[in-house]
Structures are given as C-alpha cells and as structure tokens.
C-alpha cells in the first residue's frame, strides 16, 4: 500500500537515465535536508550547499554500489553523509574566518559531534519527513469531508463551530473526524517506519 517507499525510490536511482526517480528522490529528501541544515544553524547559501553536496555524494556512492542496505538503513547513511557535510563546513568556517561566522537566525552553528552518524537534528527531521509522507498518503485515501474537517480544525486551528457549519456536520463529528484521522495517520507512520526498518 505504500506507493513511494525509499525502496522503490532507491531502485529507480540505479539507472542514471531515470530522471523521474531522481526527481522523486530529490523532492522527497531535499526539503528535509534543507530543513536539517537550517535546524543546525546554517545560513541559506550554506544550507543549500550542504543539501546539494549531500545528495550528490549519496547518489554517486549509491550508483557505485557502496550502499548496502543490509548493513545500514537509508536514514543512517543519508544522515551520516549530511552530518559529515555540516561538520566539514563548520571546520572550514572555523579556519577561514574568526570574525564572520555563517550563522543562521537562530544563532551560531551547532558543532556536530565528530562522527559520521546522524545527529539529533537529523533524527528529528527524519521523523517529520516520515510524518509528511504519511500525511500525503492519508490525504489520498481519506474521505474528503473527514480530511477537510481534520485539516481545518486540527491543522489550521479553525474554531470547531465554524468547521462544523461549513461542512454541515456536528461539532462532535468534527472531533471524531480529527481523532480518527490522527489514529489512521499514526498507523501509516508505523507502516512506513516498519518498511524503513526492513
């Protein structure tokens, strides 16, 4: 039931001419990598460089057969590459300039630990990305009215009475739509997580 898992995305990347696979991979992972880079405090241009370098390194290594899914999950591998790129950029910034750090709005750059494992910021982004994928899948399968009730009330913070009036349902029904939709979302997240683990 999972239409675009990491498995199917990765399979498509094996063929260098498969532009669709690359675009899908990019669309799935570039936003989360960019968000990760921003989360660790990189300014926009540096964050974009990290994303581009991470994806390029990943795809090159993947096509060279250096990714063994039996030994490492995609999250670990991609997160390790991204973490490494941030670390290297951080090291370059330290040596290149003492007075002009490329810090984001949140303050100074985080100083990632000296290893190649995904850091906490990447773990968090990965969780959010799974949630994003699950939400997309949920949107496709859900009853349109129930999804709209959930979206307006729970996501967009509309007052329950306004949602109920718009969709011609009771306030209690809006609450139930929200509760069931989130329950289903939780199930889909579990399915995706199980697949990523597998």
């Amino acid at each position, binding site marked *: 039931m999972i239409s675009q898992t990491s498995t199917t995305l990765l399979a498509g990347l094996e063929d260098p001419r498969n532009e669709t696979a690359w675009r899908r991979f990019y669309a799935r992972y570039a936003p989360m990598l*960019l968000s990760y880079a921003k989360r660790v405090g990189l300014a926009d241009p540096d964050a974009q460089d990290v994303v581009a370098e991470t994806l390029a390194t990943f795809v090159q290594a993947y096509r060279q057969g250096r990714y063994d899914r039996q030994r490492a999950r995609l999250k670990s591998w991609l997160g390790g590459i991204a973490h490494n790129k941030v670390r290297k950029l951080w090291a370059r910034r330290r040596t290149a300039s003492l007075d002009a750090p490329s810090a984001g709005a949140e303050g100074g750059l985080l100083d990632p630990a000296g290893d190649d494992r995904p850091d906490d910021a990447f773990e968090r982004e990965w969780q959010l990305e799974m949630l994003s994928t699950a939400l997309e899948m949920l949107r496709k399968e859900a009853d349109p009215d129930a999804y709209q009730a959930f979206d307006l009330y729970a996501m967009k913070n509309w007052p329950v009475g306004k949602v109920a009036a718009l969709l011609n349902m009771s306030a209690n029904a809006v609450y139930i739509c929200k509760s069931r939709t989130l329950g289903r979302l*939780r199930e889909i997240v579990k399915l995706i997580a199980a697949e990523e683990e597998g």
Partner: protein
Amino acid sequence: MRCPRQERIEQLAAGSDEPALLRVRAHVSRCPDCQRRLQLAQADRGLLTDLRELAESRTRIKPLFEGMSSTD
C-alpha cells in the same frame, strides 16, 4: 452517567477546567474505555504539535527549496 461525547474528552485532554467538566472527569476516572479515549486524545495533541512543526518548517524552507530547484 453515560460515556461523554468526544467533544468533552477533547476538552479534558486540552486541560480545560470548566466546572461543567467535573462530572465528566469523575466518570472518566471510573471508566476504562474513557480513560483510553482520553489517553488517545492527549496523544493526538502531541501528534498535532509535530504536524504543526512540520507545516511551519516546510513553509519556512519552501522559498529556499524553490530557489534550489530553479538553479538545478
């Protein structure tokens, strides 16, 4: 008292201290089904926090992402 409507459970989960919820709270403390409903409603609030963080994060990076796309 019958099991309360979902609306009441949501209000409890949100931490409302409306006097009208006193009886509901008392019922929930005795009803395993409603305790489960309340736990789920509280878990939903956590999931919603994640969803809002996701929406905010993706909105924040969207202009950058579009910038990247146009240069690739």
